[in-house]
């Protein structure tokens, strides 16, 4: 792919995520019940709750990976509502559920997701993306040989490549060392300038990244 000039800032300055009575059930059990809230650009929301309370399910619904069974989630950019498919251009998602290709290297992952997002195949940008998460030293190492912390860093690189206005972090500190935690803080601060960030987790240091915290009970409400 030949790089073309950037067409200008690709994303809007104002993004709003609005949840209205959102609920999700698996079989007959409601995992998430009646969640309502509004999140605007520049804010970081924490989602806390015991195991099985539906934090990850709620994040997946915002990420468009699950459909709510009740209520609605609306996302608008500069006042314009986005449909289901448009939202995906605006979303970056880091989660323990995000799989990686064991046979590919870190650089190949970054290049693959860059191509999917319509970004130019630029070797410098690939190395820069890996550098941003502390993986620049071994770009040619296959992911099968990665530690869990390195894999988590690579998830950050792939999720933030396209500079999404909405960044969803599920258990953001999982498997990361002290330098990794500093990297997460940097990512969240960058995201605060770019748009909205949602952090789901239970650890105090994860929730400390957020301006406000939504606490979900064990019944999902």
């Amino acid at each position, binding site marked *: *792919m030949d*790089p*073309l*000039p*950037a*067409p200008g800032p*690709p994303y809007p300055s104002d993004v709003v995520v609005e949840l209205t009575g959102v609920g999700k059930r698996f079989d007959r059990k409601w995992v998430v019940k009646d969640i309502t809230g509004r999140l605007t650009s520049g804010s970081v929301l924490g989602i806390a709750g015991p195991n099985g309370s539906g934090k990850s399910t709620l994040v997946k619904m915002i*990420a*468009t*990976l*699950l*459909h709510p069974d009740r209520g609605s989630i609306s996302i608008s950019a500069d006042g314009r509502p986005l*449909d289901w*498919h*448009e939202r*995906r*251009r605006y*979303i970056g*998602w880091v*989660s323990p*559920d*995000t*799989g*990686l*290709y*064991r*046979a*590919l290297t870190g650089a*190949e992952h970054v290049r*693959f*997701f*860059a*191509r*999917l*997002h*319509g*970004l*130019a195949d*630029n070797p*410098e*940008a690939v190395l*820069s*993306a890996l*550098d*941003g998460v502390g993986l620049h030293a071994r770009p040619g190492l*296959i992911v099968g040989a990665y530690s869990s912390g390195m894999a988590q860093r690579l998830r950050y690189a*792939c999720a933030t*490549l*396209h*500079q999404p206005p909405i960044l969803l972090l599920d258990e953001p500190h999982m498997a990361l060392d002290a330098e990794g935690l500093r990297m997460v803080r940097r990512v969240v601060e960058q995201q605060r300038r770019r748009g909205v960030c949602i952090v789901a987790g239970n650890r105090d240091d994860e929730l400390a990244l957020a301006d406000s915290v939504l606490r979900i009970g064990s019944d999902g409400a």
Partner: protein
Amino acid sequence: MTSWPSLTRCCGSVRTVPESPADRALVSVGWMDQALAVYRKDLRVELRERTALASLVLFVLTSLVVVGFALTGGVMEPGVAASLLWVVMFFATFAGLGHTFVAEEETGTAAGLRLSACPEAILAGKLMMNLTLLAVVAVVAVPLFVAIAKLPVPAVGRLIAVVAGGVCGLASAATVIGALVAKARARGVLFGAIGFPIVLPLLMMTAVATRHAISPLAGDWMWLRDAGGLFSYATMLVAASVLVFPIIWESN
């Protein structure tokens, strides 16, 4: 950090693009770029791990060796030979190709794909990969089978056209069935249940077409009609997949 220059828009953004011919062209390029990216990724993974290729080639070689032993000293009737060839190709296909989507679901990479690429591009990338693998298998298996079964091939071009049609049909069927069953729990049962009505007409067509291609008694233009039928069936399968796949891919 170096920022990424934007090259194209992905197909998920169709509705955000003003309706001008130039912009529609951009969207179209983005769709193909995504399909090629998925194809290149799958090809690279396969070249390193050789999971599908190994099972495909091993299955075909084992089957052909058994056929060779069974045929020692004998000659196979063209109709039986044609059926046997496609039975081998069919089982090889479903042993090796059915797992393209399953692997994405099982390793958790499907969610990343869902967020980053449009369903049609993913389907096209997977189809291209399955076509490539099956073409490699056909290049190995068909000449070997012809040699082992001592089949007369009056016109090589005809056989190539028919095999190409059969490969397209089988790859399309394996892709769509793989996509349909990827999220299911009882995949083995579903594979058979869904695969049977889709693949049976195709297998019958390929067996008849191959018999016509290798039989000196068949009419001059029969192979062309047969090959056309096979390509049409493959096209129909792809068209149906394009309609159905986004719904299956996004269901939860």
